[in-house]
């Protein structure tokens, strides 16, 4: 098992530790937890590496990280897994009646607010429901295609689309609230 597995591990997993770590960090919400998840995920990846046929190594590894992160959350923080598939009706309505800010002309104040804005955005991402956050991070940070995201989460492409749209709407809404 050893030499080939080690060589493949070095080739496939080691260059992707950073990427995996970022995903784990966003899913668990903490750097320490992300390290635990990564450690477990890498052992899993190592044990499975010989059965991994040629293909999308990145998606393969991220799938492992994602699954380990979910079972880790279930073990340690079951509360986090409560799913909010939909935005609240209030929030939905607010999105639809919004649009005031859309036409606003940027002012010097806006520039001063930029810093606050990114803090607000950070908070907004952290409070997104887990499955929306997962899809958002895989798209916006990892730059994966809808097809790849669908494969990792084992969900239909249509679900990827609606989750992304929901995640973004929710973030835009939170940003507007923060600017008020």
């Amino acid at each position, binding site marked *: *098992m*050893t030499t080939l597995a*080690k*060589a493949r*591990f*070095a*080739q496939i997993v*080691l*260059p*992707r*530790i*950073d*990427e*995996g*770590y*970022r995903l784990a*960090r*966003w899913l668990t919400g903490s*750097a320490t937890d992300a*390290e*635990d998840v*990564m*450690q*477990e995920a*890498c*052992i899993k990846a*190592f*044990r499975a590496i010989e059965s991994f046929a040629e293909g999308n190594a*990145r998606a393969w590894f991220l799938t492992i990280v994602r699954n380990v992160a979910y079972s880790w959350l279930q073990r340690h923080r079951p509360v986090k897994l409560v799913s909010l598939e939909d935005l609240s009706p209030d929030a939905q309505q607010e999105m*639809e009646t919004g*649009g005031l800010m*859309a*036409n606003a002309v940027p002012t010097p104040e806006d520039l001063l607010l930029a810093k606050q*804005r*990114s803090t607000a*955005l*950070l908070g907004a*991402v952290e409070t997104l429901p887990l499955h929306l956050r997962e899809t*958002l*991070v895989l*798209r*916006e*940070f*990892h*730059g*994966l*295609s*809808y097809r790849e995201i669908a494969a990792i989460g084992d969900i239909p492409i249509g679900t990827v*689309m*609606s989750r*992304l*749209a929901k995640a*973004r*709407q929710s*973030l*835009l809404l939170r*940003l507007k609230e923060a600017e008020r």
Partner: protein
Amino acid sequence: MTIDNETLLLLNAYHDGELSPVEALSMERRIKAEPELAAFTRQLGELSSGLSEILPGDPASSRLRGSILASITTDLTHDDVSNEPEPEISLQSADPRRAYWGPIAAALAIGLVGGGFAGGYFTHLAQTETRAAAIENEILTAHLRGLIAPQPFDIASSESHVVKPWFNGKTTIAPTTPDFSAQGFPLVGGRVDVIDRKPVPVMIYKRRQHTISVTVTTSSDLALPVQSVIDGTNVTSWTDGNLTYSAVSDLNLGELSSFADLYRKRLAGGG
């Protein structure tokens, strides 16, 4: 004054470059005609650039890397992995076995990258590694020099069919020059650098304000490091046939490796 759900999904997919050319074209027409769609598209763009600033964060610590390597090696020493209980997963573990295997794991990793440690071969290896480092350094220097110049390229074009033939007669390497505008890495041009005293093709890509140089060399025997950071600039290298591609940029590692993955996929004939 409202955008219906279907249109929202399509706008998101348009923003992500996931629409087919025909769908994208009709969406572009709609965006031109309907100002609220244009405003929403702009918001999506701003959101993405905001996210790209906050999502990367700190990379994995070297402590984590070390302990991953150590646990892999521990894993190997078990005779029957499947019957063993899950290894204790803790970074603070005081397991002396782990401490003992740690350095060996590191040595193994070096061995894997370098090829082995045997007698006279070692000297050869050391020389090769020094040469690889020198070449990587030249590639980096050329990239930085390109950034100082008014334009980082000698020919400006986003058409891979313009950039690729432009290299004819200027270098002996005919590289693949794909354009990744749809994925957010537009091709902006090409230039010729002199690496290891040979003229080699360089493709220039953009990611927001960041410049990515992709340098192609024939030194595939040299095994440039897969990833390294030199004074804050990231260098990612991979080989395709007898050509070595090195992507150099101040872009964060996550995005640079997704760029490298895109490129590799394209070289392999996919994507």
